């Protein structure tokens, strides 16, 4: 089985990396952004498997982005690997601080409390004129272990970097989902009482998923910031988090790759509806969301990865 996973990962990497050749510049950038956001959504999917959905992943997306930007601007660090590590470390710590707190909330309360947390970050950043307030900050293009590409090369390098991280993160999460703890998470979504009476701690399960989500969010935010060259508090605004949730629902919790396909599809729809319906793109997007929710109640993943027995 594991060999299959490795094979799949390699295939996924090749297919995605091929994009750096096939794709026009604008699309490569769009894909890079979509994949970065996909990482955040993968974190939400991890929580969805446990039965909760965070409406506040913008918190970590933003935290990661600002950590990278502030570090880059104040210490002149530009190496993408260092920045990614630093911001995921910060998000890990913050996640470990909030995780236990949130782990006892469910459903709409978990969603709203996580939303409140990210809105507080949004508010605080908006107030801090020193770091640009609502206007945000710019961050210089990253370097790769001393190599400082420019133009199309830079975009390609960034894109390949995202792809690599996506494939690694995706594979790791797949391993986790298939693991004993992964199954326990699914059981928790289903019947917490049973899990507790089997002697496992539901809060513990929830906390782990939350912390993983935090780290993935941080990585996604860092990459997004480096690709955009700009961060602002909007990263933590509820509509941003709302989009992440939408991608997660669109993907469903069954398949990991579906998350990234969903992210790319959303970016495409958004970008084109923007261009073709400048006055009614929200309408277009909203209708698209509804169609997806109606047509794919279990998400894209259900197309390719029907659970045993769920076929009915």
């Amino acid at each position, binding site marked *: 089985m594991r060999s299959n996973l490795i094979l799949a990962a390699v295939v996924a990497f090749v297919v995605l990396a091929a994009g750096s050749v096939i794709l026009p510049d604008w699309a490569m950038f*769009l894909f890079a*952004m979509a994949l970065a956001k996909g990482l955040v959504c993968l974190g939400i999917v991890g929580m969805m498997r446990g039965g909760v959905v965070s409406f506040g992943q913008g918190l970590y997306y933003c935290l990661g982005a600002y950590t990278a930007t502030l570090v880059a601007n104040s210490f002149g660090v530009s190496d993408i690997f260092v920045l990614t590590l630093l911001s995921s470390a910060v998000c890990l710590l913050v996640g470990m601080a909030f995780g236990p707190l949130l782990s006892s909330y469910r459903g709409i309360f978990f969603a709203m409390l996580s939303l409140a947390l990210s809105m507080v970050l949004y508010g605080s950043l908006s107030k801090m*004129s020193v770091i640009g307030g609502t206007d945000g900050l*710019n961050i210089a293009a990253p370097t790769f272990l001393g190599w400082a590409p420019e133009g199309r090369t830079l975009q390609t390098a960034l894109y390949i970097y995202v792809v690599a991280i996506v494939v690694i993160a995706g594979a790791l999460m797949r391993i986790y989902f298939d693991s004993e703890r992964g199954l326990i998470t699914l059981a928790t979504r289903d019947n917490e009482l049973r899990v507790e009476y089997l002697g496992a701690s539901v809060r513990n399960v929830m906390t782990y998923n939350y912390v993983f989500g935090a780290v993935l969010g941080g990585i996604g935010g860092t990459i997004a910031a480096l690709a955009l060259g700009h961060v602002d508090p909007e*990263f933590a605004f509820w509509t941003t988090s709302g989009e992440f949730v939408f991608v997660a629902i669109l993907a469903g919790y069954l*398949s990991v790759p579906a998350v990234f*396909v969903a992210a790319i599809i959303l970016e495409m729809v*958004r970008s084109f509806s923007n*261009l073709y319906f400048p006055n009614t793109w929200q309408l277009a997007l909203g209708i698209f969301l509804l169609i997806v929710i109606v047509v794919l109640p279990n998400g894209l993943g259900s197309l390719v990865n029907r659970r045993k027995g769920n076929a009915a």
Partner: protein
Amino acid sequence: MMKSKIGGALAATTLIAGMAGPAVAADDTFKIGVITFLSGQAAESFGVPAWNGGKLLVDMLNEGGKLPAPYDTKGFGGMNIEVVIVDEAGGATKQVQEFRNLVQREEVDAVVGYVSSGDCLAVPPVADELKAFTILYDCGTPRVFEDGSYEYVFRTAAHATMDNVSLARYLKSRNFDVPSFAGLNQDYAWGQDSWADFTGAMKQLYPDAEVKTALFPKFGAGQYGTEISALLREKPALVHSSNWGGDLQGFLIQATARGLHKRSQLALAAGDHVIPQLQNKMPDGIFLGARGVNGLAAHARGGELKELTDTMWDAYEAEYKTFPVQAPFRMWQALFGLKTAIEKAMADNGGKKPSSEELAAAMKGLSWDAPSGHIEMVLADGHQAIQPNAIGTTKWNAEAGKMELVDVEYYDARCVNPPEGMKSQDWLAQGFPGALCN
């Protein structure tokens, strides 16, 4: 093996993306991407009027001969003007993506846009990366060129420091007594910066004026009851606000209903654009600016630009049944600047459609006339414009049934803008060194 299946799906999406081919602009058309607010709060106050003005001007230019010299030639240097318009709503992240799409997918020849300061900060690095000629036509924050420098990015409107410096100077020149003042500004960069600029300028001109309270209601709050109570209790001699759009209208309606304007002088840094909607609900005697000699102030100015101004003014009124406020004026000065630059570049390159490099070279340090006055790209090494400004006092003309601006004071560009090479905050802190006021 679902991963590879998904991989297939992904490759498919990739193809779709690849197929969405751009419509390459021919040499006899000049394609501009215009980004401004078509939805959300800023649509009504800035985005839509700005583009109404822009559309009007583009049509007039494409027809040719509609405008007084030097703008009587057709299109941009004879080329037909084609426009791709994009909604600015959705935040800087989205705008950076849209910018790339405009340049790389739509292959526009130039981008004109951005009301939001956040977008104006986020886009320039990308513009330089893509070597895409870009005009920022509206946004206020001085940080764009004070914190960075860009090859292909130009701002054809003065930055926001001018607005509040002029306001303070207006108080002084009308020797209005300000023992104390307070502020109510939107809680985001625009409001925070405007308040900082205003207090900075006041510290110079009214050193011993006491700052009462600085209120920052949430952007789009709509309800100002509590804030107004606070202002009524504090009884400041003057209340400063840089609010715009619905927030300003809401504040004025609620403040006047509770007599705040009778108790304190209201001074609005960018208030002119709500006059067409509020009409006589806007009380008399309010000091207000228009972020430049725009709208009523421009109409009242006359001078050698009268013909140009009136042509645009009348065309706009005829088309949209209301008079143009600040936003269309700033769009006009951007498009006139772009026209001038293109034609200058073509004069240098022998009439070919200019490249981004040639455009940038031509735009650098350029100066041209617009309905809002003489625009000079003198700051930030020729990338940032300065322009004259005006502040006036509202007065409802009952018989004409329209709001007028009286006691208008005009300020030279160099009187209310910092000199080249000096950050506006330092300029304020040091008491306007090098300011040339008539």
